[in-house]
């Protein structure tokens, strides 16, 4: 960020007198705003797409009356939610009730900072990228737990407890399933991980096809991540038919909106991490984006990244509208008895593979066979 600020100060004469740190700070705010706008737009459009896809899957149409072909549905929903009365139940813990949605929202939104949207499009290429995502998303647990408790509603409490237990349990397989990508790249930075999947192997350079273990860990990650973000079939914390609406049952208006947005934000983060760590990120197959001019390279890589990420989101929606929901004990059993041991075994397999074949994947070996 500071490097960018220096280059900006050098490039724009108007900024010459301004202290460097001010520029940096302003730049940070600007980037945060861009990310926020992107996140909100994505989440709005995401909810619309979700409803359209749901319509398609469910043999109906979905929103088509609000705006051209229902395009403005998310705007109407958003404005309405903002203008709704903000009820705080009489017996609720007012402070925590108000605070909780922000934890959830921040936890999901802060992860957008390290998502590598393009070859140069990343808000902050932290060298602890993945680790950072794991860390900030853990804020969600606190928010959900507090929301459930502060509502003073037993359904909400049950939902909050379920959510906390679920997220904490599934954090482990998610982390473990992502480590293979880290091992291959030798870095926690998401940009490095994406770069490690580039090259001329095309889609076979992806970590997904690196070796059988990484192939397997992609699915482990995707399953566990869906559970960590409370997507169906793991949406027990807000299971509509059991807990009415779960931890957010007492929330109305914009506070509910924050939960709603966070849910779609989480969905995108999961898809983005899957894309970056296993599906080659913004790498364009058989083509080196870095050779293009900055603007075109970024646009192209952004397009590739978003396409992949949205495809993953669509798959999540597909799963969501297809599968029934697990029961809470089955959910816990699945994490501790199946996913956690499997991810550990898988991690061991990847490490051994990398040790034995000196970091080379199957496609790489085949390619080197043919020179």
């Amino acid at each position, binding site marked *: 960020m500071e490097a960018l600020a220096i280059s900006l100060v050098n490039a724009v004469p108007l900024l010459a007198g301004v*202290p*460097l*740190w*001010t520029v*940096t*700070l302003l730049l940070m705010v600007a980037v945060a705003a861009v990310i926020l706008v992107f996140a909100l737009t994505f989440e709005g459009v995401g909810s619309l797409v979700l409803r359209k896809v749901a319509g398609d899957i469910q043999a109906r149409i979905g929103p088509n009356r609000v705006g051209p072909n229902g395009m403005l549905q998310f705007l109407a929903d958003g404005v309405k939610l903002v203008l709704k009365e903000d009820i705080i139940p009489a*017996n609720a*813990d007012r*402070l*925590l009730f108000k*605070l909780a949605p922000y934890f959830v929202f921040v936890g999901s939104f802060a992860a957008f900072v390290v998502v590598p949207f393009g070859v140069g499009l990343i808000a902050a290429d*932290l*060298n*602890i990228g993945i*680790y*950072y995502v*794991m*860390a*900030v998303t*853990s*804020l969600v*647990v*606190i928010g959900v*737990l*507090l929301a459930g*408790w502060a509502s*003073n509603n*037993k359904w909400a*409490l049950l939902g909050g*407890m379920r959510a*906390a237990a679920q997220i*904490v349990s599934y*954090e482990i397989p998610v982390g473990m399933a992502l480590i293979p990508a880290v091992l291959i790249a030798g870095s*926690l930075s998401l940009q490095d991980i994406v770069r490690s999947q580039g090259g001329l192997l095309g889609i076979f350079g992806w970590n997904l096809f690196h070796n059988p273990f990484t192939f397997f860990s992609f699915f482990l990650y995707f399953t566990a991540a869906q559970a960590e973000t409370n997507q169906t079939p793991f949406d027990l914390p807000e299971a509509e038919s059991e807990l009415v609406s779960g931890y957010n049952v007492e929330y109305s208006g914009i506070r509910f909106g924050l939960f709603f947005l966070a849910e779609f934000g989480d969905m995108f983060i999961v898809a983005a991490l899957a894309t970056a760590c296993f599906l080659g990120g913004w790498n364009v197959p058989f083509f080196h984006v870095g050779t293009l001019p900055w603007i075109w390279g970024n646009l192209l890589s952004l397009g590739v990244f978003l396409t992949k990420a949205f495809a993953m989101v669509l798959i999540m929606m597909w799963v969501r509208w297809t599968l029934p929901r697990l029961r809470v004990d089955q959910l816990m059993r699945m994490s501790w008895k199946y996913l956690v041991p499997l991810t550990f075994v898988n991690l061991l397999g990847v490490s051994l593979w990398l040790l034995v074949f000196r970091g080379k994947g199957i496609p790489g070996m085949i390619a080197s066979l043919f020179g």
Partner: protein
Amino acid sequence: MSGPADFIFYAAAAMTVGAAILVAILPNILYAAVALLFSFAGVAGLYVLLSADFLAATQILVYVGGILVLLLFAVFLSNRISDGKTTNPTHFRLPAAAICLVLFGVLSYAAVSTPYAVKKGVYLPTTADIGELLMTRYLLPFEVASVLLLAALIGAALLSRPDRAASVKGEMEEGKR
């Protein structure tokens, strides 16, 4: 160093200490837990400023995502949560405050008056170094720590397991009824 770093430093320091004071005095234990969250976050901010990025993320991940959740669970499970109120009684407030203030004075005086051979801190990514050190120089402590974690895991599981003798007794009583 001036500018944003200083500003962020003071902000993080204020958040850390302010939240810690709230932890100490807030009457509602859940509020104290939330204050503790902010204190942890502030400490994480300080770590970032001290070029300990890995540690900062670990702080958030373990303290916020792990320990705080455990604390909240402990609060929920050890209070009549359905009543909605959580109390946090205190005692010996005045002597404790006196002791703490005196101690704080002594510690601060010692910290400020000691001439340290301060070198200029360098900002470097630390993850790789920490990893390497853990696998080489600190391998024994690392392994000991893993044994400790395993022991804690088993111990916690054993402790929180329902008491078999008691439950058998309870069933017998149930049967009698």
